[in-house]
């Protein structure tokens, strides 16, 4: 147990993986404390999955070193495999088999006897609310059920380290919350979780430390608080009554609040990124923003105070956005 409560679950130094000309992972250093949820945040193609695959011994690093609970992922791969589990869209279960069959199959591969594998499988299916679907082929499962059986398959033996590679991608909000509950239950029992995600709120909900990666490099790392402080406390989304007033609103926010302003595709909408300061909170700054706009005679129909989105985090950290929907105005 001591390794689960103290020390590092994962330690990498200068990890590199190249595919042809592309450096998918380009010198990643990570230190993941045991017993926590560690978030790896980044857009598609940032190198998240490649990093996880190297740590889970599925890919061989081209450079650098990685240790999982002190074991080298290349030289002591078997030792690492004995302590980790992996759930990702590429590490799934067999669609042609039923839920029960999948769990019994993996249980047997992990060394359980027939009876024990059956029992453990049934208990897991029950805990995951899948008892009714136990005898159905997994290809007939819904997205949420599918993710549950994937995770169930990863905890047949309680792992010391669980990799969850984008566990909620493509799920509806309800199923997403349920996956989050599962993650919390897993980490509460002492398992370390490495979670990759594209969503800041997911990392925010679950992770105690977060690494932001982009183009194969870690561009920021820290606790949630540190990361948010570095990005700015949040943003205000505004909808004006009159599109003609937008340039004026932009000027007011920029000049008086020193906020970075993004113009939205909707001609009456704009977003102000509020820098963080010790003296006032995001809410204070939003209130000031509204007051300044009202004084300038600009009518605000509607406003909301938001957390920084991944786009905003990226903009703040890298000076370019995630590439999801490029806005020309951003550079201005």
């Amino acid at each position: 147990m001591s390794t689960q409560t103290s020390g590092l679950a994962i330690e990498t130094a200068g990890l590199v993986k190249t595919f042809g000309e592309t450096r998918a992972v380009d010198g990643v250093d990570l230190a993941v404390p045991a017993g926590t949820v560690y978030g790896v945040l980044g857009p598609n193609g940032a190198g998240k999955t490649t990093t996880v695959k190297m740590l889970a011994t599925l890919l061989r690093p081209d450079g650098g070193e990685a240790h999982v609970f002190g074991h080298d992922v290349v030289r002591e791969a078997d030792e690492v495999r004995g302590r980790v589990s992996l759930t990702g869209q590429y590490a799934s279960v067999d669609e042609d088999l039923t839920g029960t069959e999948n769990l019994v199959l993996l249980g047997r591969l992990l060394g359980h006897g027939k009876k024990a594998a059956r029992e453990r499988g049934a208990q897991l299916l029950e805990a995951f609310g899948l008892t009714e679907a136990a005898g159905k082929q997994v290809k007939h499962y819904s997205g949420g059920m599918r993710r549950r059986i994937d995770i169930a398959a990863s905890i047949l033996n309680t792992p010391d380290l669980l990799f969850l590679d984008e566990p909620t991608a493509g799920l509806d909000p309800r199923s997403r919350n349920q996956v989050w509950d599962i993650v919390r239950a897993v980490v509460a029992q002492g398992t370390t979780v490495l979670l990759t995600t594209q969503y800041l709120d997911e990392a925010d909900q679950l992770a105690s430390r977060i690494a932001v990666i982009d183009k194969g490099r870690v561009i920021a790392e820290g606790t949630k608080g540190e990361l948010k402080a570095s990005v700015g406390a949040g943003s205000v989304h505004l909808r004006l009554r009159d599109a003609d007033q937008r340039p004026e609103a932009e000027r007011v926010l920029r000049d008086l609040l020193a906020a970075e302003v993004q113009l939205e595709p909707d001609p009456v909408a704009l977003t102000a990124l509020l820098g963080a300061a010790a003296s006032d909170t995001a809410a204070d700054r939003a209130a000031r923003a509204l007051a300044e706009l009202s004084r300038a005679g600009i009518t605000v129909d509607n406003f909301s105070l938001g957390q920084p989105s991944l786009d905003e985090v990226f903009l703040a950290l890298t000076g370019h956005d995630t590439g999801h929907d490029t806005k020309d105005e951003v550079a201005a």
Partner: protein
Amino acid sequence: MSTATGTESKELAPVRADSLAALLVARERPPRPSSLSTSLTFGWRAVLKIKHVPEQLFDVTAFPIMNLLMFTYLFGGALAGSPSDYIQFVLPGILVMSVVMITMYTGVSVNIDIEKGVFDRFRSLPIWRPSAMVGYLLGDALRYTIASVVMLVVGLVLGYRPDGGFTGVVAGIALLLVFSFAFSWVWTMFGLMLRTEKSVMSVSMLVIFPLTFLSNVFVDPKTMPGWLQAFVNNSPITHLASAVRELMAGHWPADEIGWTLGWAALFLVVFGPVTMRLYNRK
């Protein structure tokens, strides 16, 4: 299909955090299973897949029967005077050809598993590395057995009478299974190496058609041009077909059996390690 939609639309039962927590508390692990046990477990998976997708048995039932009927009645009269005379010669050969042909589906199943994502889960398990591959091949051995039995039954109905009796026939099939098991490692390699299921199929066809047809399966090689005889007489399929034919006829062709096992060993020694290297590096 109605069951599927029923599952989708119904409210999903909640996750039970308390029972989940109770399950996660247990951290003791069973001892690591033996390589035999994990290979057999993967073989069991193949059997389960046959159970759930019985259509996949088409290639080991309908296809061999079609081959047998087609070649017996197409060539029988011309080559041996009558189909019933020809079948004495051609049945063991077609048996060999059909089973060797269906070995290529091994590569296809490997490739589909990679595509579907179940493969990486297996690779991340702390088990004897080749067991997933051996599992495919064990499942396939079952398929080859089914194909062999089906063809023999149809052959017997058509008038095939093996002089070697039950023992000779079983010995012939056993040799065919051993060879096919070893030969399949060629396809596991392609399954890992090529990107799509389609390309695995095309490459397999390119190898398997010339290899099976350019042999003594249908005719005595003496009528072929010299350069072709040189190839045909040294082809592993010729050795295998001769050995199976002789075994089923009640003889003991030590030479041909030796050649066949030698080829099998060569395939295993060359393509087994290449497959495992790709498997570990993938």
